[in-house]
């Protein structure tokens, strides 16, 4: 009896309750919106519920694992990931022009998904090892560790995942102490770059203009973002229809289950990447801001865990994973509202998809693990 109580206590104690509360709220919102998005009776609703159970279970498993142990997995996990990515490159399954999957006979896996965890884990482990002796060379090596999987994923091509993997690695390097002197010019160049693309869109989006670094379909997406009306029935359709859905929600929204764009099939991918349009249409500006506040709370809790982490590696890992969640949210909502190009990034807790939820569950599990396992105070 006593043992059982201790096990229960141990289980409960391994949970970070403030984070858990936020996750619970987001999950509730996710299930409610899914119900509307699938339009009443659909197997997807039950599937998504199952996905949540699996994700929470994985989260709990990770949460009860000490962070030191998790960091020990970094190298094998990372190496396995890169090997699988290489395998995808040579023997991967191709569908819709992208080679992203490995067929294992029983099931198909997408190795790029695990890199969202593996890359920040690897980098955090590396910086943890090199703590105190950081040199410029370390920064270069870390960059290499990041760029190899990033480029392999870009090559597939899978811009959405690549952005998330890159963001995760980048934030580890940033938190590890990347010089602001290096960072600020990069950001300035980035802003100028985006600005010039915007100004010169007519030339750049000319059919004969070759962008060299990006695929034609990626060029198309960016050009469509700049002016969706050039392709109202093709690529621009997603952006136009999701923008209409969000905008027509107005301040108060059309009401739960009353979104016309949603229920009359005007929103493409409405259970997955574009589910935010469903939410925005039915819950309006109030709903959107409330949801953003929930995500912001998640972000702040994650960063707080990072700040209170017991060692350097855990700090970096927690900070980077939290910022990955932020990138998820920003890129997805930015895309649905038409300020970012259409890239395949799901919205955490709302979008349908077992793999994405599992990844997020593991990330949250790591955060909890870091939050709870503190070395005894000296």
């Amino acid at each position, binding site marked *: 009896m006593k043992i059982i109580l201790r096990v229960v206590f141990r289980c409960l104690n391994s949970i970070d309750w403030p984070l858990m509360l936020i996750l619970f709220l987001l999950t509730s919102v996710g299930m409610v919106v899914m119900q509307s998005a699938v339009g009443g009776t659909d197997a997807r609703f039950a599937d998504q519920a199952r996905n949540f159970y699996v994700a929470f279970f994985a989260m709990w498993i990770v949460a009860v694992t000490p962070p030191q142990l998790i960091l020990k997995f970094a190298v094998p996990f990372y190496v396995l990931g890169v090997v699988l990515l290489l395998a995808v490159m040579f023997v991967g399954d191709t569908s819709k022009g992208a080679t992203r999957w490995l067929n294992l006979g029983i099931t198909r896996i997408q190795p790029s998904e695990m890199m969202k965890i593996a890359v920040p884990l690897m980098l955090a482990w590396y910086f943890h090892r090199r703590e105190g002796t950081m040199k410029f060379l370390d920064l270069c090596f870390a960059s290499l560790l990041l760029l190899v999987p990033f480029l392999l994923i870009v090559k597939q091509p899978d811009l959405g995942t690549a952005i998330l993997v890159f963001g995760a690695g980048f934030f580890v390097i940033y938190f590890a102490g990347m010089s602001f002197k290096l960072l600020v010019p990069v950001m300035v160049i980035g802003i100028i770059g985006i600005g010039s693309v915007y100004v010169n869109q007519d030339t750049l989006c000319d059919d004969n203009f070759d962008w060299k670094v990006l695929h034609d379909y990626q060029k198309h997406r960016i050009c469509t973002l700049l002016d969706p009306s050039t392709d109202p029935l093709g690529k621009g359709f997603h952006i136009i229809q999701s923008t209409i859905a969000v905008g027509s929600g*107005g301040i108060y929204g059309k009401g739960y289950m009353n979104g016309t764009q949603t229920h009359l099939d005007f929103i493409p991918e409405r259970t997955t990447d574009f589910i935010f349009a469903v939410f925005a249409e039915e819950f309006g500006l109030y709903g959107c801001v409330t949801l953003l506040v929930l995500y912001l709370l998640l972000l702040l809790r994650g960063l707080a865990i990072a700040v209170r982490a017991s060692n350097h590696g855990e700090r970096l890992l927690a900070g980077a994973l939290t910022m990955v969640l932020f990138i998820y949210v*920003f890129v997805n909502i930015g895309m649905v509202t038409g300020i970012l190009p259409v890239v395949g990034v799901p919205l955490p807790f709302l979008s349908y998809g077992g793999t994405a939820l599992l990844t997020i569950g593991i990330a949250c599990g790591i955060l909890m693990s870091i939050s709870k396992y503190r070395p005894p105070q000296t």
Partner: protein
Amino acid sequence: MFDFKKYDQQQKNNFVLRVIVAALFALCCFVLLSFRFWVLQVERYEGLSARADSNRLAVVPIAPRRGEIVDRNGEVLARNYLSYTLEVVPAQAGNIDELFDALTPVVFVSASEQRRFRRRLAESGKYASIVLRNNLNETEAAFFSANALRFAGVQLRARWVREYPQGKSAGHVVGYVGRISEADLAMLEERGETGSYRGTDVIGKKGIEKTYETALHGRPGLEELEVTSRGKPVRVLRRVDPTPGSNLVLSLDMGLQRIAEEAFKDLRGALVAIEPATGDVLAFVSQPSFDPNLFIDGIDVESWRLLNESPDHPLINRPVYGTYPIGSTYKPFVALAALELNKRRATDLISDPGYFEFGGQRFRNSGSTAFGTLDMYRALVVSSDTYFYSLGPEIGVNNLHDFMKPFGFGQLTGIDIEGERRGVLPSTEWKRNAYKTREQQRWYAGETISIAVGQGYNAFTLMQLAQATAVLANDGVYMKPHLVRAIKNPRTDEQTLTVASAEHKVPLKKENLQVIKRALAEVTVSGTAAGAFSGASYATAGKTGTAQVYSLRGANYQSSSIDERLRDHSLFMAFAPVSDPKIAIAVIVENAGWGGSVAAPIVRKVFDAWLLRDKKTVPVPVRQTNATVPETSRMAVTPRVTP
């Protein structure tokens, strides 16, 4: 250990700073998103909301139900029935060949229907709904419904289809509807009426269906639907019912119409019967006729060829389109002109030696019969050409023109059916305008002589002759002739008469009318039409006539030796009862020869049917139509003009 701790603390502070910067960055991004929400959901709300509505709303027109056409007793000439139609939107249906293959076991679609479908596909494009098959029966409709899910873009629809239960009878009167053509569309556009034809695919093409198109059509309704992105309707948000087209009540009496048509047997010709007091057209025959039902779905090639190439020209609406020199049936009007214009008194005696000499030329009576000395009465009864030849120069062509015009000769009668021709009421002015060279434009005195007996340049429609007869019967009161007596509101059943009052009155002296009417009455008693009307229980006034098709120079006309289609037309004009005319009639039988033997008996049948319709239980003994004709009248055949 202490050093390490200090270092750790420093690094931690550094980390906190970076966390704060990252948090601020994230916050900025979220503020940016919030700003974007505000732009879309507040600033651009109206526009985007409207676009969401235009996405989901579709307005579908509902075609009005076309008005019905009934005769004066309520017998139906045109009505609508509900028919199941298979329609295809090619854009949704995918490959057309595959569709046909898949459909065949479910609903039979003939090769010609497939061809017609492809032709319409080429015309109207692949987004329009195109009829694949009409008139599916209940079984076929049910069978298709059960399999409907298999055929995307194929719809089973119930729609109103026009039907003409009388078939050939009165085909020219009622006309027909047909699919709206490019030309119809252009016409509708010009009139700004395209809107009221949304959802409608037929329009009146001929006859009453055409002239009363506006009244029959009605106004379309609409249905505002909520649709999915694929255009599938989800629910009806608003519905405005269509206003059905007005029903038309014809002045025609179908019973009389049928009797008149049957009286023609296999002969070609036309007949118009008018109620003089009202202008109601009681019967309107154009023989041979056609079945308007053939045209509704677009006539097939074979039927069209038969109709169009037939030497009998069944598609020509003879009473209003055919123009003829009306021969002796013109004489009563010429005689009346002479009296009214004081050119000759009724009692003036004229010697008829069988010919009339003018400018060294001889104008012969038909058959060169000499009638001796005649007054007007006698001249009409025996149909003396010489009497009227001599009247020509006395009255003068322009005086005759001015007198005849208010009777409607050479004028559009204004009857409510399309395709009416004006014909020619000759005058010197007319000839000046009609011809090019000086020589041709000159009016020759001899030409007036032929005109006085209804020949020469005279070219009138049978409608005009019937109308003039009605005006004569009605003592000069001109009622505009009409086939549609009233327009009936389909909701309230309220009737509006199309012709309520007289158009004008030809000023005629009573005693002059008396002379003419008495003479015409005698025609059916002892004159040229005596045979046809012997034994009639009512008094009829009438005049036979023969219109020339083929002119013979001096030689005798031998009907048997002439090609049938070059034989003369047989004419008859009449009204009855003489004292109080209830019906006025004109009839022409093409290439049938002498008027008294063929045209008059047809009129007798019609008159009997109309005037004795209340006494049907008491059959009146009627002698056979081809009864022997008295000697005198047999010789008084209408003239043959020798120019």
